């Protein structure tokens, strides 16, 4: 017969201050661990929803980002004439010539400037991104000084709200609409008429091109066609891959930072658990002796103390997760140094993070509790009873 669970649980209540301090330390570790994982997951989610699988981005070879890329009209015409480009139900070829520039805008909260993407799009460009919906106002009129702003930009930057104006390229641009891009990277962009923006910035070439494949499986063939054409100096990437590559450095940085910090923190928490459990064993030597004398085996003692440590870990884990879950209401906006542009993403709690965090907490409890539990199990009945 195993030692009753209530004995284990009540031991934790017997010394509240110690329990609270130990579980509190673990809760903080789990909280930090979970929030960083949530950030990485949020960034990933933003990027995955930014790209469509059957869309292809074309940029100048070796340029890595749209801002650094340039495609002149001659090359754009060649890409336009690809046979693999899909046609929308109303007979429009789904290919968009886009111009992407960065402008400096001050943030609403701090007044400090950050770089925001201004994307010049075509009607096809809108059709190519079905996740984008206008939520306020209306779409810009082609040929006018009107633009629409992504939700994160409208909320976060001065002059980017509905009806306000932003000044760039020696002209004032009115924000006539706010769009929601389903928490994708486009939420951190401002969109306007492509040709209009090109003129305003006095550019002759486009930055990138985006088109939809008739058949997503044809990607490799299309890529080979484009990249082997001697008239073109371009490279083609699946849209999803393209955006994932662009934030790889940021994602890697977040993961490394999170893992590194969690490991260091968990050492502290494991030590805390160990101290508590050693003390818990030391103060109950007499009890352990009695339990053994009553016929409980060494193994059952080991299990009981391990259960106590695991319970401590679980309590900390649940507390930490509760704190982390509250972070979901927040979003974070920072500069992605690969694109040099602002990107907003939110803390996203996934089932995997819940499981990993709890497992992490239990492991901390187990590691911290194992040695003390082992010591408790090894006590000899006679010695233990005499000590009491």
């Amino acid at each position, binding site marked *: 017969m195993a030692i009753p669970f209530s004995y284990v649980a009540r031991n934790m209540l017997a010394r509240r*201050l*110690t329990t609270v*301090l*130990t579980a*509190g*330390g673990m809760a*903080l*570790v789990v909280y*930090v661990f979970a929030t960083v994982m949530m950030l990485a997951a949020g960034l990933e989610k933003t990027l995955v929803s930014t790209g469509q699988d059957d869309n292809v981005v074309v940029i*100048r*070879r*070796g*340029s*890595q*980002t749209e*801002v*650094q890329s340039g495609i002149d009209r001659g090359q754009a015409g060649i890409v336009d004439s690809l046979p693999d480009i899909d046609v929308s139900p109303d007979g429009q070829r789904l290919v968009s010539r886009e111009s992407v*520039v*960065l*402008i*400096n805008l001050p943030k609403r909260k*701090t007044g*400090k*400037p*950050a*770089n925001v993407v201004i994307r010049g799009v075509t009607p096809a460009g809108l059709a190519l991104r079905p996740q984008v919906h206008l939520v306020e106002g209306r779409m810009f009129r082609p040929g006018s000084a009107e633009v629409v702003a992504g939700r994160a930009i409208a909320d976060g930057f001065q002059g980017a709200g509905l009806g306000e104006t932003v000044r*760039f*390229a*020696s002209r004032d641009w009115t924000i006539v609409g706010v769009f929601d891009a389903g928490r994708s990277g486009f939420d951190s962009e401002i969109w306007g008429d492509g040709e209009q923006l090109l003129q305003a*910035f*006095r550019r*002759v070439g486009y930055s990138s091109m985006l088109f939809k494949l008739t058949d997503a499986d044809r990607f490799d063939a299309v890529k080979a066609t484009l990249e082997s054409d001697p008239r073109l*100096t371009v490279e083609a990437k699946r849209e999803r891959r393209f955006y994932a590559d662009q934030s790889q450095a940021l994602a890697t*940085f977040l993961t490394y*930072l999170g893992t590194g*910090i969690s490991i*260091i*923190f968990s*050492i*502290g*928490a494991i*030590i*805390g658990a*160990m*101290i*508590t459990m*050693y*003390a818990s064993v030391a*103060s109950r030597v007499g009890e352990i002796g009695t339990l053994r004398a009553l016929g409980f085996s060494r193994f059952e003692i080991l299990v009981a103390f391990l259960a106590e440590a695991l319970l401590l870990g679980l309590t900390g884990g649940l507390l930490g997760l509760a704190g982390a879950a509250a972070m979901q209401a927040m979003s*974070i*906006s*920072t*500069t992605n*140094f690969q694109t*040099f542009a*602002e990107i907003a993403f939110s803390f996203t709690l996934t089932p995997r993070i819940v499981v990993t965090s709890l497992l992490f907490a239990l492991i901390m409890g187990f590691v911290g509790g194992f040695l003390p539990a082992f010591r408790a199990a090894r006590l000899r009945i006679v010695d233990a009873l005499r000590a009491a």
Partner: protein
Amino acid sequence: MFLPLLVLRNAFRHKLRTTLTIVGIVVAIVAFGVLRTIVDAWYAGVEASSSARLVTRNAVSLTFALPLTYAQKMRQVPGVTAVAWANWFGGVYIKESNFFPQFAISGASYLDLYPEFVLSPEERRSFLADRAGAIAGRKLADKYGWKVGDQIPLRGTIYPGTWTFNLRGIFDGAEASTDTSAFYFQFDYLNETIKRQFPRRADYAGVFIEQLRDPEEAAAVSQAIDATFRNSLAETLTETEKAFQLGFVSMSEAIIGAIQAVSFVVIVIIMAVMANTMAMTARERYGEYATFKALGFGGGFVAALIFAESLGIALIGAALGIALTFPVAQGFANAVGALLSGFHVSRETVLLQLGAAVVIGIIAALVPAWRAARIRIVEGLRTIG
């Protein structure tokens, strides 16, 4: 003599517990120090900036360039004694993860503006004489094992093609804060090549740097420069070098803030561990404390004993932790490479670590000391363990 010994003996009565606590504090202090150093590294550019320099960029954003002809007009602005310019190159050395800053610079005028780059006269001469010449900072050259005379190929991301440079010199920093992880080459080489390939993109500079006659005039001169180019096709934004560098830092504000917050969380975690240790220690010794009181010692004495023990443990941990911070930070710097320049543990960091340890020691002892000081002799003597 007796009291310190008593405190020390008390502290190590439970060798295992005290050792574990000290290990915890060491880990926390090291983590705190390294995290602070990472944050400091972000500000390295700000630290290294001079108040006698202004930076002018395109008002739209850094990705837009300014016509080279602006240099002439800037020289005419009262208060400006010299003008230099630079372009961000953004090339890839062998593979993308080998990131380091690369700039095309306006030769002698640029080097004159940055006296903190220490280059021998011969190296300077041979760099300026070679159109495809380049100079690299000591840290960067060490990382890739470059020697003067090496050829360095960079694959352009903004300027297409592969560019090969001859390394003509390796410069050192005049101060510890000087960034020696960057790579500089001749603007003329970039410009002439671009002129042949993309004539429209030639004769543009990314940023202009102006030397001020008097740093006090910074505000007036920057306004004068911006006024000169107002309502032109390329309006300018001029700020002090420090403000320019701070602009970069503020872009990663969210991440820096998070790291800073986390560095304090680690202290709070270890505070909980330490407080736990002290709470258990004091609980076990209520009988002894009561005995002290019975012998005539006051509550203050008992509290002082607990504070001394707690502070002692925290400070031992801090001393070990601070000593360990330096090699760990060095190891971290080697691991991330040139990504973070100016990675060194500052004196403020060490002082903050020490301060954190003192705070940990005091806070941890607060509740146990308060309880022990107020304990009634009879009750204290009655308690067992």
